[in-house]
């Protein structure tokens, strides 16, 4: 569904929009958002480009002000200012450690400092943005768990469950590696997304290149470039050329959206069910095979059901915890 109308821009002045954008920024600044706040925020962002632009602008200004941290008094103990700036900073005491980073779209933002492996997880329907001291970000989708270890020499992440989107500040001297069970991905300057499910593993490269490898180096590593999706399911391994644009759409969850481009109703329902308590059940095969091409806010099950009912002319049965769709 199309939510990008400009109607609000006509009625609301730029100043009013900016005030709301600033309030949302402070809500993010306060910390983790509740699911209802997140929904409200996503809906506000989705409702007009004017809202988004105002938010991006303020967010960018607030991010820039992070540099003010340099004005923080440095304690005599932290004399080590040699080497690469962010790595030396990571070693420095708390007084010069980075402050909470800017809020990226949606979800709460967490700061990851130099430390042993730390676990970060999201609950069902939740999203989080982790920001590393080097400027790399890791966006966690629903029901996801990662462990992160940042040391002077390396940046390592273990994706133990779920799905994450990585925006890596490439640094050849400090490899960025993500391990998923017996497989690993090493960044070669890039943005990529990894989804780990019990039976399969999907690595999609949105920008740049990554090296997809087995942890024990038993197989020849594969170089994946932008637009590639590598899938491992059991013993099967294949690389699909999907195109970076398509992959960006698939990662729309980062912005609280689901983009379906001629996706079967069954797959679309399964995707919604990853985020929402009210489950969509597509009952018969005929209905399951119908395709849908639309964009929805991630928590807006009702909108999806309306499309099934009004556009696809399917039968909809709304029950207590589930909605059954049939031909």
């Amino acid at each position, binding site marked *: 569904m199309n939510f990008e109308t*400009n109607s609000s821009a006509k009625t609301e002045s*730029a100043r009013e929009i900016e005030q709301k954008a600033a*309030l949302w920024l402070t809500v993010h*600044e306060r910390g983790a958002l509740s699911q209802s706040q997140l929904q409200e925020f996503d809906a506000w962002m989705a409702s007009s480009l004017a809202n988004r*632009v105002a938010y991006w602008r*303020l967010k960018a200004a607030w991010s820039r002000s992070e540099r*003010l941290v340099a004005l923080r008094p440095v304690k005599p103990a932290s004399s080590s200012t040699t080497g690469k700036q962010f790595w030396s900073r990571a070693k420095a005491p708390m007084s010069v450690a980075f402050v909470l980073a800017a809020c990226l*779209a949606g979800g709460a933002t967490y700061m990851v400092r130099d430390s042993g492996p730390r676990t970060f997880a999201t609950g069902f329907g939740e999203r989080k943005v982790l920001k590393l001291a080097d400027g790399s970000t890791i966006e966690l989708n629903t029901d996801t768990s990662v462990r992160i270890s940042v040391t002077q020499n390396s940046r390592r992440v273990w994706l133990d469950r779920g799905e994450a989107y990585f925006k890596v500040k490439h640094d050849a001297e400090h490899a960025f590696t993500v391990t998923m069970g017996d497989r690993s991905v090493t960044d070669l300057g890039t943005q990529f997304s990894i989804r780990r499910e019990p039976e399969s593993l999907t690595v999609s490269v949105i920008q740049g290149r990554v090296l997809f490898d087995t942890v024990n180096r038993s197989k020849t590593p594969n170089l994946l470039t932008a637009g590639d999706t590598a899938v491992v399911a059991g013993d099967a391994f294949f690389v699909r050329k999907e195109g970076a644009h398509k992959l960006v759409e698939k990662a729309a969850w980062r912005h609280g959206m689901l983009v*379906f481009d001629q996706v079967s109703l069954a797959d679309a329902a399964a995707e919604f069910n990853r985020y929402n308590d009210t489950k969509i059940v597509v009952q018969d095969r005929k209905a399951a095979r119908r395709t849908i091409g639309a964009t929805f806010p991630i928590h807006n099950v009702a909108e999806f059901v309306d499309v099934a009912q009004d556009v696809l002319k399917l039968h909809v049965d709304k029950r207590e915890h589930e909605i059954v769709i049939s031909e």
Partner: protein
Amino acid sequence: MDENSLEPSRNGARSMCTDEVMAASEVEDWFVRKVLPLEPLLMHFLRHNWRDQSDIEDLRQEVYVRVCEAAQRKAVESPKAFVLATARNLIVDRVRKGNVVPIDAVSDLEVLDVAIDAPGPDQSVMARQELERLQAALDQLPARAKQVVVLRRIGDCSGREIAARMGISEATVWEYLADGIRALANALYSEDAPKRGGRP
């Protein structure tokens, strides 16, 4: 330059999917890196070519919306030329619609052609200059908002700590912070770069 080719359509309704050159999710990055740094130039142009200064923020917003919409549809080669052409078209549109007082003279819009070739904001601001810029911006904030920003950014204080320190409620802290962020954005983007060592 063919001015029509620069005219972004004002058909705003648009889905995130389909064939845009830039995915909707990439627009933010592009906007922040390529368009926002042009804000001083854009504001200068708008202030110069529009009589009612109370409209400027709305005009700026409209320019940004049009530019971002267009960027989702086709590649924008020169953001600077494109932003200014969009601003120019917007002003021409408004004048044509007749619902506003026209600007003094259309010839004023010629400033545009000069501005495109004039040096833009420095793309590679050195860290120290950036810090000076931020300090200058900070100095322009209202006192209470400044205090909250300083405690948050430099003092790394929580909302509760700031509230206790300033003797205000936590809710008020966030209100001041919201004001502070807006003022910071205006100081950083909307105003011309301050001269070294002081405000303009």
